[in-house]
């Protein structure tokens, strides 16, 4: 039966190589698959030892995928307006079959933060940011910031007390930005001709983030779009660059 399937034209049109049993077919297996060919066909043994990379970069990526999938499923049920948001979250728990979506999405997000920190720590401790990998480390730092922002914007969406006030604590920091926040140093000193203040409560850094002076419905919409569309797109592109550069920089680092 299996042999029959493997001999059909359909199977052979998908997998252009035999079962990966010998060297040639194994190389083919990696080269002819879009996803696997993110990898080189052969790597140094030391580079993939579990006690070297801890598999943490890979896990961060895997968790990113898990978040994407569970996130898309959540979007089917969730409406980002104050009237419905909280009720939709309750409904997710009560009415949706396999009501684990939210749990997987939330704990997965926490796990991704932990994984990315550990990944950064291992890259630091192996000195893998040193030449020729300076640029990829920089890409990594941006990935780190974006991942934390993803988590931060997502935190608001359940629209419960925890969410709204955690984001309030965070966005209050924006009010304190020098020159750009209402409560920040030097902001009062920026005047337009005629002594009109340049930065007002309606044009400071916190207002840009929240589209309002406090966390309200505009902020919810803004965070929703950032969380579901803008940030993930940027993150995906940067991850692609990150992976591309790992190979261009000579693969996983190792002792000379």
């Amino acid at each position, binding site marked *: 039966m299996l042999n029959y399937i493997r001999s059909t034209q359909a199977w052979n049109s998908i997998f252009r190589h035999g079962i990966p049993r010998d060297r040639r077919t194994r190389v083919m297996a*990696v080269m002819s698959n879009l996803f696997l060919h993110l990898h080189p066909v052969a790597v140094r043994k030391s580079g993939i030892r579990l006690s070297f990379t801890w598999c943490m970069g890979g896990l961060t990526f895997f968790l990113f995928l898990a978040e994407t999938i569970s996130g898309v499923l959540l979007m089917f049920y969730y409406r980002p307006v104050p009237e419905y948001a909280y009720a939709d979250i309750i409904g997710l728990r009560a009415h949706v079959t396999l009501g684990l979506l939210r749990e997987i999405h939330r704990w997965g997000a926490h796990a991704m933060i932990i994984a990315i920190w550990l990944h950064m720590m291992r890259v630091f401790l192996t000195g893998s940011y040193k030449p020729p990998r300076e640029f990829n480390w920089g890409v990594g730092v941006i990935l780190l910031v974006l991942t934390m922002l993803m988590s931060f914007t997502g935190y608001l969406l359940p629209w419960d007390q925890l969410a709204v006030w955690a984001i309030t604590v965070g966005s209050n920091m924006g009010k304190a930005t020098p020159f750009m926040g209402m409560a920040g140093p030097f902001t009062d000193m920026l005047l337009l001709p005629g002594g009109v203040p340049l930065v007002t409560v309606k044009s400071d850094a916190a207002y840009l983030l929240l589209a309002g002076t406090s966390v309200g419905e505009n902020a919810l919409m803004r965070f929703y779009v950032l969380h579901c569309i803008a940030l993930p797109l940027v993150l995906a592109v940067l991850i692609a660059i990150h992976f591309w550069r790992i190979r261009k920089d000579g693969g996983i680092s190792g002792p000379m």
Partner: protein
Amino acid sequence: MIHSVLTLGSGSKPMFTNPAIESFKSFVNQISVPEFSLPIFSVLFILMMVYYRKWTRPVVSLAILVVFCVFYFGSMLIDHNYLLIIQKPDNVPITIMLLSMMLCLWMAFRNAAINDACLEVGQPLPDADREDKVLVWPDLVYTEMICMILVSVILVVWSVMLRAPLESPANPAGPPNPSKAPWYFLGLQEMLVYFDPWIAGVILPGLIVTGLIVMPFIDTNPKGNGYYTVKQRPFAISVWMFGFLILWVVLIVFGTFLRGPNWNFFGPYEYWDSHLQVPLTNINLSDYFWIFGLGKALPTNPFMREFLGIIFMAFWILVLPVILAKTVMRRLFENMGSMRFYIMAFHLVILAILPVKMVLRWVFTLKYFVYLPEYNLNI
């Protein structure tokens, strides 16, 4: 399952109490205030960096892990307040982070100990097998698949056991007390105790990001590229790991576990009393100088009033790097060149001002070096 085991002790009485346990608890509560516990953690950190060959031996590290777990998890049985904090669903990631971080630290320093032993006698590293290549299929693909399956299982079990938290609907008029940022930002929120929001919430995170990005360009030490070592790059590793472990991770643990209503500090076995009033008796540097030192009133000109703090900050940020370059860090300065050195030194002195201000707060109840409310500029 495990959840029901955890809830065993969740009546309002802990499972075990007796006078010895009570005095242990009050002892721990007393030493856990930041002015004691942060120095203790710093000393532990130094021991960790110095004796990495000793503690990474499997037997020793296993013993450390067991002791840690006995205290960390055993405390759930002897104290109800602690149990409540540890069990809070949003705090579970902290426990997972601590355990996985300990595992990773062990692997890193264990590898470093082995590598450094080889480097000392001039042997090649166990990993120096440049030519020794293996095929991605099966070696890497299978490892990745096993990791993926393992993490999926952990994630599903975690999700089945713990519901994602959901509190009452948003109420813009009634903030919960304490209001906390998400746990991964609590290190910054903890910094709010010592610094104004413009520093703790804007300048510090900004400098963390720029510091990380410029790091590869200012660390000119060519050694330790691609393998674990402590001996070949002690300065880089101590500074970075101190920032990460003590000023980031430990402060997150404080912010989550030990900061209660009104952001007051509570020991791990203390009840979060929302009526507790802690009088704020902190004093500005300018008050110290003019009122206590000279016995005069504060000058009306703000810059006159704050001149000492302004001079101190200017010294700290502008002059101290130059002094470092001329004295203790001369070798580093010559190796790095001035541009690299001053970028590094700028980030370093700002990093250093955090513990400096903490200590001054604890010892002299210092509030601000520079207090210029006229410009919202308090440091």
